């Protein structure tokens, strides 16, 4: 279970926390707690939404605590943006209930042209920066950005019905 879900959950926590060490700790914690409570936990809608929900709760609690204790990892502008658009919560949980979603996302990413896909995956899943990607593929940062833009367009088109 750990092997299967770690990456996805880590990426997800990172999206909320924007801090690698914390994201790793939180995902670890969630697995640990599941292990400790393995006899008592009731899972109604499958393990995946449960994991995501747990990671979401833990991450947002962590953010809250940091804000409450005054050591904001969030500088003001991030707070303002968050206030403007809110935390994207229910969306992903609802999506996880639909089985075809995962398959379709997978398809959509696979259908990207080869270089475009590799660049997008380096960015989205390996979390490389634009600079690191430009070095790896020996292309300019601008090209990296253009390719990612293309990937976004294509994915938006493919997955439009879910967005």
């Amino acid at each position: 279970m750990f092997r299967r879900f770690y990456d996805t959950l880590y990426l997800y926590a990172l999206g909320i926390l924007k801090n690698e060490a914390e994201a790793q700790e939180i995902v670890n914690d969630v697995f640990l707690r599941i292990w400790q409570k393995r006899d008592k936990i009731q899972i109604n809608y499958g393990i995946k939404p449960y994991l995501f929900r747990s990671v979401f709760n833990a991450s947002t609690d962590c953010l809250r605590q940091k804000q409450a204790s005054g050591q904001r990892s969030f500088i003001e502008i991030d707070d303002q943006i968050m206030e403007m658009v809110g935390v994207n919560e229910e969306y992903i949980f609802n999506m996880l209930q639909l089985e075809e979603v995962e398959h379709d996302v997978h398809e959509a990413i696979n259908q990207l042209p080869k270089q475009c896909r590799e660049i997008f995956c380096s960015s989205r899943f390996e979390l490389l920066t634009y600079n690191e990607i430009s070095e790896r593929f020996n292309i300019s940062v601008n090209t990296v950005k253009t390719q990612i833009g293309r990937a976004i367009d294509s994915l938006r088109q493919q997955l439009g019905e879910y967005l």
Partner: protein
Amino acid sequence: MDSQENINQEYKLLIYSYLSNQASEEEKSKLLNWLQESEENRKFYKSCQNLYDLTSVSQVSGKISGNKQGAWNQLKDKIETSDNAENAAKRWKITYRLLAVASVMLFFSLGTIATLLLSKGGPNRQLSEVVHEIIVPKGGKSELVLPDGTHVWLNAGSRLRYKGNYGFTNRNVYLEGEGYFSVVKNPQKPFVVDAFGVKIKALGTSFNVKAYPEEREVTTTLVEGKVKIEGKGVNIMLKPKQVVVLTKEAQDCPKGNLPDDENTTQTQGLGRGSDLAVNNGVKVDSDVNTNIYTSWKDNIWIINSESLENISQILERKFNVTVQIESPRLNQYRFTGRFNKETLEQILNVIELTAPIKYEINKGVVSIKEERKRSANYQDIIK
């Protein structure tokens, strides 16, 4: 529309940079300004964020493995030590519970609100384990604003509870008693009132819920907007000016404790509610005068053909007294009227004028007796 498309082209990458933590301060303020400009921009942002989240679900990744092995080892260590520590942790938990009970704090504000902050939990206290409780004693009334801006009025003898993660991971509150809710709109997080197991879900509306422990019914009145009511075998979408009465027996309602965090509960959209279901223990009234149900929050008490029995229940809560009715026959008398700031005596005087009863107040107990002479006259008139 075309120009909008072009603008979006420019911002989709900016949004992506922001989400992947690569945006400079300059870019962030540009994004913030743009978001402040229009609802449309925020919508576009949302759809980009959705796409970003959606791709994280995909299993294409599997490349952060260096990291993963380390994390796995760490986890294994923790599991081994935690199994030993488990018993110790249990003892901690009990100690903390005791401490929590001992450290119950009461704030009285204006003599009407008692706020009870009950915190329990171990060294790793989670927000979801902190419970806020607002108790309005009999004779009181209170008004409060929840962390998300939702406005709540609580009637006498009510209590409202919510967890520390309210507004953050959910917007669930638990009600015993009567409350009027003016809910701030947030389509991402439905506002849910749980009253004895009956769930009233709303996105952004105003409605009244009456669910006293001593009464058999849960009554929901919708003033504006939309709410969905979910209970055992019940799934009703309410339209404005409708009232739904559910009998608790038909719901075999759980009493007491807060349910555990509903980690996996799916919140359904409001879209596909069934039409009015009228079955066992459910009553729906349409086109009502909602004022009758909600005016209490403005200190106006409207009585619309209520029995003395119901009225005395309200008097008990409103004035913190016990009402004893001597003969069950009196319970059948019905009254209609409207009170504003009248005292208990003034209200009882009015009731006395319109029915053959006499009252006495002694140490917080109101005894209502039949006045036989007048009663006999009444019987003659009725005949």
